[in-house]
């Protein structure tokens, strides 16, 4: 059954594989222990990615063909506490009866810490096998581990491996059949086991029987989730209270600290029995590189250089560097990759093929136009972004998999933390100066879901290159080339990002529980070409499929609306855009823009076309003002026409202060409201749910409208060009609302508590 290509029955094929598998395996281990590499090694490409219900954690499953094993790859985690979504999802899975064997990957180069999870897993009372990975790394460090001794000490089979070197895989698969249930009596004090069992024995719920010891141990550590679950069971609650009391008397410390300590003491004994040399931390190469890369003075400059490379790869290489020769009408010019894909591959090549095909079968004109301008145009709009996205992720996955991104989070945390973002948000913002689509996709590497969401909402506040023509158009016409214009725009962008972060961070919706900021800095690791390419492929595919459908739909829809209408009393295709349905709709919604100064069907239509691609705003304005659509943004005729247009619809003189104010208002709305449909598609894909997507749209539109309102009404009133009216009052209210949202106390305490000294017990 080779169903991996069919996304439709993804779920049912998993279930079938699961049901007919000879063994079901739960694969679990710390982050950075080589789990993904091992998973890929075992399952080759038979993998399915889904979602754990209720949380934003990927559920990855696979199938080992030769042995007919089903594997669930649980998220990388350090422990099984009740605090973060990954841990909860994994605990629940481990407590279920949906698997037969636990394969725990242990990083041999960080043995002591890795075994902490192992000992927690032991209390689930399920057969286990340890895959002792990264044996090649410790061999290089001159450390050796007595695997047999480790097996004896732990009481479960241990398979020595090096997943990256593809060694040990067969041995592991064979050993799974010999998995054994660990005996925690080997690790802990008799007295403690007695206390654990006194609680465990009270848990009589059938489903939990085999893992009662885990639940009991958790209850004794005041685990919130289980305490709530068993609240009503008096017998359990009493035994827990009794157990905690006894334990704290016996050990003279609180239970949480006790269990951590007991685990690590047991680990100390185990490690001593099988290893002679003490680990000194990360490998020497890693330490050497970090001395430079994390040096207090060099860290930031080096970071900017790295970001420069990423930008170079994603934007410059694909959108500016003129590489590809193209000959048209006897002239050869050099095009950059993106332009080549858009203008040549789609603009000329695909267009002419489709056109020829259709004319050959005598298709009606309107159909040809639909297929060529609408469909090919739509598909081209999506696929045109692929070069940028592919290049971006080539660099980003390399950085992420090499381990550098953790260092980035370390370097920039202090600045970004105060407005709800993290160091990892910086790179998307830089890329956004080029194009919002790859920038939004770049937010994918952010693990903290709150920071990721805020990042996705704020990334497109930075003006992308498509918005530059709009800026130039306004600058050249109504702004009289004011020197402060460009600084104003960029300052406003950054201001928008920072304020949005601060405002959103205060609300509960953006404080979903995540792991506290306690991160391991992993060894540097040279990513394999295969895994980098695999990620590039996965991201590109996800973009095309998920973002692509929206983009395509909207392009075709707008094409339809702008080419059909009522002309000369006939409903059908129109020549003049003034008569299109789009213009009609524009006229209907124009009043929305009245409070911000540019209520007219022309600007409304420009906005809608800008929705397709921001650079369309300029060409649309040119067309509706009677000029050719190819008029350049700095063209005098466009500037003049724009000035006259704004003056006319507001009934004022062409030299009035009103014009720059309108210009700024118009610009603000174009720049900071929702980005083009391609970026929106990328945003939706990255945000995941419709709920968040709608919120993002609402927020950005409200934000931009608020800025435009304040500019037009308040500055307009201050300069005496806009009379006092209801909207002046509304504008003041909006300003006040903004200030309130910005300075109100946060409803949420924050994951890391700032404990004033008197609370330290």
């Amino acid at each position, binding site marked *: 059954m080779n169903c991996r290509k069919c996304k439709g029955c993804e779920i049912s094929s998993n279930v079938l594989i699961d049901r007919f598998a000879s063994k079901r395996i739960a694969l679990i281990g710390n982050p950075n222990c080589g789990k993904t590499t091992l998973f890929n090694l075992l399952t080759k490409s038979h993998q399915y990615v889904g979602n754990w219900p209720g949380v934003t954690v990927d559920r990855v499953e696979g199938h080992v063909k030769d042995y007919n094993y089903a594997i669930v790859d649980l998220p990388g985690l*350090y*422990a099984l*506490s009740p*605090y*973060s979504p990954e841990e909860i999802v994994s605990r629940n899975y481990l407590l279920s009866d949906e698997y037969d064997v636990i394969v725990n990957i242990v990083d041999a180069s*960080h*043995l*002591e*810490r890795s075994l*902490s999870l192992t000992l927690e897993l032991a209390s689930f009372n399920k057969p286990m096998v340890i895959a002792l990975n990264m044996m090649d790394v410790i061999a290089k460090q001159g450390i050796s581990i007595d695997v047999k001794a480790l097996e004896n000490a732990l009481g479960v089979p241990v398979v020595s491996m090096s997943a990256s070197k593809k060694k040990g895989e067969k041995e592991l698969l064979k050993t799974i059949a010999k998995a054994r249930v660990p005996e925690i009596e080997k690790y802990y004090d008799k007295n403690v086991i007695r206390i654990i069992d006194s609680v465990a024995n009270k848990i009589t719920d059938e489903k939990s029987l085999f893992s009662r010891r885990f639940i009991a141990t958790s209850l004794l*550590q*005041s685990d919130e989730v289980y305490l709530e679950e068993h609240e009503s069971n008096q017998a359990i609650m009493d035994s827990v209270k009794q157990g905690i009391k006894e334990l704290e008397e016996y050990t003279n*410390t*609180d239970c*949480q*600290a006790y269990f*951590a*300590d007991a685990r*690590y003491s047991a680990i100390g004994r185990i490690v001593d029995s099988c290893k002679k040399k*003490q*680990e*000194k*931390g*990360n490998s020497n190469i890693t330490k050497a590189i970090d001395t430079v890369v*994390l040096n*207090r*003075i060099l*860290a*930031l400059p080096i970071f900017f250089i790295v970001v420069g490379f990423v930008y170079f790869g994603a934007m410059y290489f694909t959108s500016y560097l003129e590489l590809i020769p193209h000959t048209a009408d006897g002239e050869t010019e050099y095009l950059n990759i993106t332009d080549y894909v858009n203008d040549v591959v789609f603009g000329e090549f695909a267009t002419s093929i489709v056109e020829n095909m259709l004319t050959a079968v005598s298709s009606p004109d309107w159909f040809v136009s639909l297929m060529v301008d609408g469909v090919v145009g739509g598909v081209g709009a999506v696929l045109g972004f692929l070069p940028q996205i592919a290049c971006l992720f080539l660099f980003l996955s390399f950085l992420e998999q090499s381990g550098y991104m*953790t260092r980035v*989070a*370390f*370097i920039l*945390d*202090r*600045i970004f*933390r105060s407005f709800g973002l993290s160091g990892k948000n910086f790179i998307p913002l830089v890329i956004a100066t080029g194009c919002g689509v790859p920038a939004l996709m770049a937010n994918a590497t952010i693990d903290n879901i709150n920071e990721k969401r805020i990042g996705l909402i704020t990334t497109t506040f930075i003006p992308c290159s498509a918005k530059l023509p709009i800026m130039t158009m306004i600058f050249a016409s109504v702004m009289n080339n004011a020197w402060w214009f460009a600084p104003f725009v960029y300052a406003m962008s950054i201001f928008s990002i920072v304020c949005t972060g601060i405002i959103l961070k205060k609300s509960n919706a953006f404080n979903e*529980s995540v*792991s*506290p*900021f*306690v*991160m*391991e*800095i992993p060894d540097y690791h040279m990513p394999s070409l295969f895994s980098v390419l695999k990620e590039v492929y996965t991201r590109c595919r996800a973009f095309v499929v998920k973002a692509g459908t929206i983009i395509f739909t909207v392009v075709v829809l707008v094409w339809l609306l702008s080419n059909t209408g009522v002309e000369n009393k006939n409903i059908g295709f129109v020549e003049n855009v003034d008569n299109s349905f789009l213009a009609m709709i524009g006229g209907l919604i124009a009043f929305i823009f009245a409070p911000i100064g540019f209520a007219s069907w022309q600007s409304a239509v420009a906005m809608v076309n800008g929705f397709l691609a921001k650079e369309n705003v300029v060409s649309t304005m040119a067309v509706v003002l009677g000029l050719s659509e190819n008029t350049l943004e700095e063209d005098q005729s466009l500037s003049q026409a724009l000035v006259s247009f704004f003056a006319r619809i507001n009934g004022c003189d062409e030299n009035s202060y009103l014009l720059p104010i309108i210009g700024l208002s118009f610009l603000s709305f174009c720049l900071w409201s929702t980005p083009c449909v391609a970026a929106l598609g990328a945003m939706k894909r990255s945000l995941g749910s419709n709920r968040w997507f709608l919120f993002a749209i609402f927020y950005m539109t409200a934000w931009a409208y608020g800025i435009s309102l304040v500019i037009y009404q308040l500055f307009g009133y201050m300069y005496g060009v806009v009379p006092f009216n209801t909207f002046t009052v509304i504008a003041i209210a909006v300003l006040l609302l903004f200030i309130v949202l910005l300075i109100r106390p946060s409803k949420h305490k924050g*994951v*890391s*508590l*700032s*404990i004033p000294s008197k*609370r*330290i*017990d």
Partner: protein
Amino acid sequence: MKTLDKIPVLSNAVVKKVHAKGTSLRRRLLDMGITQGCQVTKVRQAPLGDPIELNVRGYSLIIRNEDAMLIEVEC
């Protein structure tokens, strides 16, 4: 009371107690191996002084200063 955020860079310390009982952060610190009696080295600070990198139980960990304030140590 000496806490981890106050000790100088590159110095070793032994953990005496982890405060803030009942919080997810404390649980996380304990789970990562910062337990009573364990050796900790403050390796470096980030360019802006925060967060800090620690060497504990054979690996490198980053925590924020406001969280390091909860780890009582003796040098």
